[in-house]
Each structure stands twice: as structure tokens, then as C-alpha cells.
């Protein structure tokens, strides 16, 4: 608890080494950009999907840190719902990938260029 004592009015915010809200937000922003980089550059459907999960997790981290530093529990409830929906989304998305693989024998986006199955 005492480690957050001067997390409030930090004037040179990022120069202070004690982790405050900004530190968590920077980690979250970098993680989000890593996920985005994965989605943009990798061409394998499964790895792209994992990068999407990375982006969702970055959003979760930002929400939890906002919730903690604003003394408001609603952010954590939202993260709880996001985790639930993400689990459902992963199941549906992977089922779609498997169905696509059965038709086309590939999980590579550059081989999936037509709209018709």
C-alpha cells in the first residue's frame, strides 16, 4: 500500500520511479501496439488471433489501473465482462478458423483471397 503513496500529485510524472497510473498506462499502450503490429505484419490466422488477444489484454490492464487509481470498482467489473466475452469470442473465432481450414486446407490469409467458400 505504501508504495502508491506518492502516486497522486506527481509533477514530473514519468520521471518518478514509483509506479503510478502513467506507468501502467505506458505498459498498456505498448502492449496494445505490439498486438497491433502482430495483426498487421503476421499472415497466419492463428498468430493474428493471438495478437488480438494481446490487444484485449492491454485494454484490460488500462481499465484495471484506472479503476485502482480512481478508487472505483466499476472498471474491474467491466474487465470481468471483457474476459467473459473474450472467452466466448475465442471459441467462436477458432471454430470459424477450423471450418475455414476444412474447406480450404490453409490458415494463411494470403491464400484466402476470394469471398466465396
Amino acid at each position: 500500500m505504501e508504495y502508491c503513496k506518492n502516486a497522486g500529485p506527481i509533477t514530473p510524472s514519468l520521471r518518478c520511479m514509483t509506479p503510478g497510473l502513467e506507468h501502467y498506462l505506458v505498459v498498456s499502450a505498448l502492449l496494445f501496439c505490439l498486438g497491433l503490429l502482430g495483426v498487421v505484419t503476421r499472415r497466419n490466422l492463428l498468430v493474428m488471433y493471438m495478437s488480438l488477444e494481446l490487444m484485449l489484454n492491454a485494454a484490460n490492464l488500462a481499465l484495471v489501473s484506472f479503476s485502482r487509481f480512481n478508487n472505483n470498482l466499476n472498471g474491474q467489473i467491466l474487465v470481468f465482462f471483457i474476459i467473459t466475452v473474450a472467452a466466448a469470442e475465442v471459441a467462436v473465432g477458432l471454430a470459424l478458423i477450423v471450418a475455414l481450414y476444412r474447406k480450404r486446407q490453409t490458415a494463411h490469409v494470403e491464400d484466402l483471397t476470394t469471398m466465396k467458400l
Partner: protein
Amino acid sequence: MGLPDILFYVFAFLTLLCGVLVIANPFSRNPVTSAMFLVLTIISMAGLFVLLHAFFLAAVQILVYAGAVMVLFLFVIMLLDLKEEERRRVKKFGLVAGLVSVGAIVTIFLKVLLASKPGADLPVPMLEGEPAALGKLLFTQYLLPFEVVSVLLLVAMVGVILLSKKDLK
């Protein structure tokens, strides 16, 4: 700097390092290694959640993500034959375009963060994310969303069963 401060830097570093290894592993292009590093990312992020006193969410993160979701990923990776992925090369143009656009977004994020200083003049954090408080809120104020999410899970389950039938029409 106390122990929690050092732990923050350790976990943040681990999270970002394993995140990099998920998308670009110099040693292996196998999706299984990506999945394993995603598990490590998620576990170190659960450590960050503990440092933020969100104990319940840290447990849920490990149980749901590192447990259920990653097992699903590994199942599908093993189900599909992805040997040829290792032979493919990354296209130069896509890599450069991706790096430039993501670099621009990183710059925007960091500039906004530095300019707005969201952590300034906040009160001392007292919040404890223990299961009791979270559950109380979940079953009073958020009862309707909770029920809707259960319906959503049912819909997802039915959809997945339908999608994975042999003769998909």
C-alpha cells in the same frame, strides 16, 4: 523503492518481452511457441493485476486465459497442420508498412499520455479488488449484464457446435 515497485518493473518487462516474442520470435515461427509465450504474457499480466490489488481478476485471468483459452488455442494448432508456416517468409513491404504505422500510433499514445498527465492530483488509492466487494457489485448493480453474459455464453456454445458440424451448409 520498495519490493512492489521493483516487482512492477519486473512484471512489466516480462509482459512486454513475452509480447514481443509472441509476434516475432527469432528462433521459431511455429505457432505453438507463440501460444506458449502468450501464456507467459498473460501470467505476468496477472502479476501486474496483483500489484494493482485486483486479486480476483488476477485469478480469473490465469484460470480463464492461461487455462481455458490457451488450451483451446493449442487444440486448434495441433488440429491444423501448420508445418508450411515455417517456410513462409515475411513480406518486406508489409513489415515496413506495419512498423511505420504502429510507430506512429505509439508516438501518438505516448504524446497524449505525457501531455494529459492522467495520474496527477488523484487521491491515494485505497481500492481493494477482493472477491467479496466485486461479487456484491456484480449481483446488485450489474445483475442484468451478468445474466445477459450467461445468455451470450450459451449462444456462443450453440454457435460453436453448429460451426464444427461436419456438413456445414
